[in-house]
């Protein structure tokens, strides 16, 4: 396993507040990497910097050795780093298939002139095939014509991942994908993520559901007050005193 | 009985420019009632009553084109009166194709391209020279002036004309003309600027009454006590109410009230001006203004020409109109305009100079526009050119 995505001295300041404070960690290719920490630790902010939504106040994000910090979100995406959003962020008014088709934007870049004349048949059918494949992968193919906004919560989450998956990403960033799911749904979702991993996709995940985190992650980084706190496998983290103190607590509801 | 002649009225009746159309239509209705009551129009084959057919063009060239088509091809009118301006060029192709006779209130619409467009009511803004000339003769102590106008199709030629008139009269301009946006509502800054140079005369050009009133009020409140000259002073009684009789004393402009005794003279071609004025004010109190009578005065001219020709056909009427001396509202006049408009389709003669005396507008004099032009035409052309207002400069 190689270092694939690396965060180096990443810093984000909002006015007087340093939300992320020279944070460094490495994500190995083909793994599921967890990022945990107390509320307000700076996890979402870190995600926002990696995905290009924020421009870091300092530090670097390296993808395969290339510095991608400060690039715009679509430029980051085009380098293979795709994110999903907290809450179900979808094209609610479009159909499920159309959602997935938007996901194929990168591999099948639309061309307006070809589209008008009708010379893009191949691309269109290629995109559609890819979209269907992604939907099938997440077991959504029977819902293809539904409006995305009408889907159940769980299906919406799956669709969000299908949209990301359709673009052939190398890395997927997931921000709290398990919120609002019951244990059964959580288990299904975990299965989907394992499949993504099986497909060679690297996953970086922020989550407060310890059942999921511990069950899924190869490596877990814990941060607190914007700073690195600990890193290790699930077992290590579960028993790490600083993590217990800052984050896990007595863990009476933690799996 | 039973036979009617239809006359088209193609002007804005709704929207922001409606004030230039609606009162005119009101005046025409009165005109038609009076003419019809007096037996209508007598042509070769008997007498006809007159009916106005209106079309609201919303001051839009495309709608004006549609309206002209409707009036000519569907309603069968014999003559169309327009406000002109923005809307005329849209109608021009229709006029060219159909040969219909049109009139406009804005002579800047005239061009050699269309021989069937006439401007018989007023030759805006050329008559304004008469006011300046009169002022220079009667108050020679006034030496300096400033002016302002809205930056639009009426304001600019007016600015050029007044510049020429002041130059001809030897009155010095203290400042460049101040142009303001037609959407202006607060005139304090404009007035502050105008009087900052302490001029003897403030000239309001062809400001619309919506501007003249607040400007006059501001002049009063900011302490100006000198001479004011303006093209119009509609509702001047209200201006007096807002300022004072003293302040408004001697205000010079160009549009008389039609109850002025001077209009009963034999030179006047408008039928019963006093009666018309009274009737209009009875029906539309507080709405009297220049447009109220101008369309009606055109109808007087048209009626005379049609009766002379014995026919309502546009060609015949046009020919009859142009034969001999023209009968302008304020006296005999000539068809004139080649130098400025490229065609002699504007009716020019004497024009009244009006001044306010003890709270009432009084005609002080009728002055000849052609006489002034014969002496100072070059100045007018110079200034018109500077503002791109010559007919061949208008793209």
């Amino acid at each position, binding site marked *: 396993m190689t270092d694939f995505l690396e965060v180096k001295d990443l810093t984000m300041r909002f006015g007087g507040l340093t939300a992320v404070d020279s944070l460094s960690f490495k994500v190995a290719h083909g793994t599921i990497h967890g990022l945990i920490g107390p509320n307000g630790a700076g996890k979402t902010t870190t995600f926002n910097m990696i995905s290009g939504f924020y421009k870091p106040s300092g530090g670097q994000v390296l993808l395969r050795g290339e510095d991608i910090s400060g690039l715009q979100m679509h430029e980051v995406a085009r380098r293979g780093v795709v994110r999903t959003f907290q809450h179900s962020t979808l*094209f609610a008014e479009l159909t499920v298939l159309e959602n997935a088709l938007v996901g194929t*934007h990168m591999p099948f870049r639309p061309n307006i002139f070809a589209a008008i004349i009708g010379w893009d048949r191949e691309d269109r059918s290629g995109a559609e095939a890819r979209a269907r494949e992604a939907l099938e992968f997440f077991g959504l193919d029977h819902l293809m014509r539904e409006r995305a906004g009408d889907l159940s919560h769980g299906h919406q989450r799956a669709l969000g991942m299908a949209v990301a998956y359709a673009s052939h990403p190398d890395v997927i960033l997931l921000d709290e994908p398990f919120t609002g799911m019951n244990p059964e749904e959580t288990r299904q979702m975990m299965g989907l993520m394992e499949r993504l991993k099986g497909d060679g996709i690297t996953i970086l995940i922020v989550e407060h559901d310890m059942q999921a985190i511990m069950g899924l992650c190869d490596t877990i980084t814990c941060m607190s007050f914007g700073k690195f706190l600990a890193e290790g496998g699930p077992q290590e983290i579960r028993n790490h005193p600083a993590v217990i103190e800052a984050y896990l607590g007595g863990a009476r509801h933690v799996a | 009985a039973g036979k009617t002649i239809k006359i088209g009225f193609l002007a804005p*009746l709704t929207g922001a420019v409606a004030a230039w159309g609606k009162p005119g239509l009101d005046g025409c209705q009165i005109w038609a009632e009076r003419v019809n009551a007096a037996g209508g129009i007598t042509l070769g084959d008997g007498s006809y009553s007159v009916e106005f057919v209106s079309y609201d063009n919303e001051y839009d060239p*495309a709608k004006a084109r*549609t309206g002209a*088509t409707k009036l000519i091809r569907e309603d069968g009118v014999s003559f169309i009166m327009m406000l002109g301006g923005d809307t005329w*060029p849209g109608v021009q192709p229709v006029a060219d194709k159909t040969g219909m006779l049109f009139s406009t209130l804005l002579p800047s619409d005239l061009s050699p*391209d269309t021989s069937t467009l006439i401007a018989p009511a007023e030759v805006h803004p050329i008559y304004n020279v008469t006011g300046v000339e009169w002022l220079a003769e009667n108050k020679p102590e006034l030496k300096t002036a400033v002016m302002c106008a809205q930056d639009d*199709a009426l304001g600019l030629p007016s600015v050029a004309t007044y510049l020429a008139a002041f130059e001809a009269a030897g009155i010095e301009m203290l400042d460049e003309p101040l142009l303001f946006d037609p959407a202006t509502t607060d005139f304090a800054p404009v007035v502050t600027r105008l009087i900052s140079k302490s001029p003897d005369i403030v000239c309001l050009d062809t400001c619309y009454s919506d501007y003249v009133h607040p400007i006059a009020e501001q002049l009063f409140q900011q302490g100006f006590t000198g001479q004011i000259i303006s093209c119009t002073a509609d509702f001047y009684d209200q201006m007096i109410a807002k300022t004072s009789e003293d302040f408004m004393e001697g205000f010079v402009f160009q549009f008389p009230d039609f109850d002025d005794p001077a209009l009963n003279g034999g030179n006047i071609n408008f039928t019963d001006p006093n009666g018309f004025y009274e009737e209009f004010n009875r029906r539309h109190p507080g709405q009297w203004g220049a447009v109220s009578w101008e369309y009606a005065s055109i109808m007087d001219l048209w009626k005379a020409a049609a009766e002379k020709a014995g026919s309502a056909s546009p060609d015949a009427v046009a020919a009859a109109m142009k034969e001999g001396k023209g009968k302008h509202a304020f006296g005999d006049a000539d068809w004139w305009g080649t130098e400025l408009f490229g065609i002699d389709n504007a009716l020019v003669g004497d024009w009244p100079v009006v001044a306010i005396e003890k709270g009432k507008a009084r005609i002080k004099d009728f002055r000849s526009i052609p006489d002034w032009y014969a002496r100072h035409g070059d100045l007018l052309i110079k200034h018109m050119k500077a503002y791109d207002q010559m007919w061949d400069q208008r793209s």
Partner: protein
Amino acid sequence: MPKFLIWTAALAALVALPHGLSFSQQEILVFLTINVLLVASYRLLTLTGEWSLAHVVIMGVGAYSSALLTKKLGVYVPVSMLLGGVIAALIAVLLSFPLFRMKGFYFLIGSFAAGEIIRLLWKRFRDPFGGAKGIKGIDPMPDFSIGFYKFDFFEPTSYYYFAGVIVAFCLWILWRIEKSPVGLTFHAVHWQDKLAQASGVNVRAYRTLAFAIASGFAGISGALLAHYVGTINPNAFDIDLMVFVLTWAIVGGTATFYGPILGCVVLTVLNEIVLRELGLEQMRPLVYGAIMILSILFLPNGLESIVQKFTQRRAPDGAPERSPAE
């Protein structure tokens, strides 16, 4: 096959249409045809979720460009019309730099300000724009004959056929764009620009693209207008007309391609023909305002929702049209 028949019948009806109308109605038909292109192009912009108040000024850019090209450079009219569209699109690209820093209400008013600045420039620079009086005597489309039909472009019917063909072609392109992956991306940019961006869509570029295309077609509609009426001036492209375009689109409904067109046709016919015929001439603004309010209260999804109800009943489980907006 019945689809083919429907289209042929519609085409025949459109060809026959002017012959069933009075002269002034034929004139209105010409302007209506031009406005259909205007409002349909406006819809393309709204696909990305932005509502501009500069669209009519951009139409004016096309009109001014085309008029000046023929007047000053003697460019052949149909060519200058096309160039008018191109120039309008280029201006839109320029405007996109400041404007697309803004969104929503800010974009709405920002675009209004940009449009006003353009209009003030027309007013202020009498050379070459003619100032407040604008440009007149614009060359008409030269007459020509195609054997069995002689085009006399003074006649509304001829111009209607000419403009109709151009507008139909433009609508076809707009339709193709909307139904293409590009169109889908426009929708995506509208509904969730963040997610679109995360999917690799250059949101800014797509907004600009939609703005430029919409503006190009608006420019062509402006050119069509200029060479028919023969005159243009800054006031003809002011906020009043823009408000009409906006209300055509919203009253018609913006969820479908035909919604805004429907709105344009129905409201224009009501305002220019029905109300005038009823002799309500000076009351038209009152009645028109009331109609607008009532239609939006009772048909919040636009006139198109009536059509949708009708067509969806007939085709219950075909691919559904995009669902109602907002």
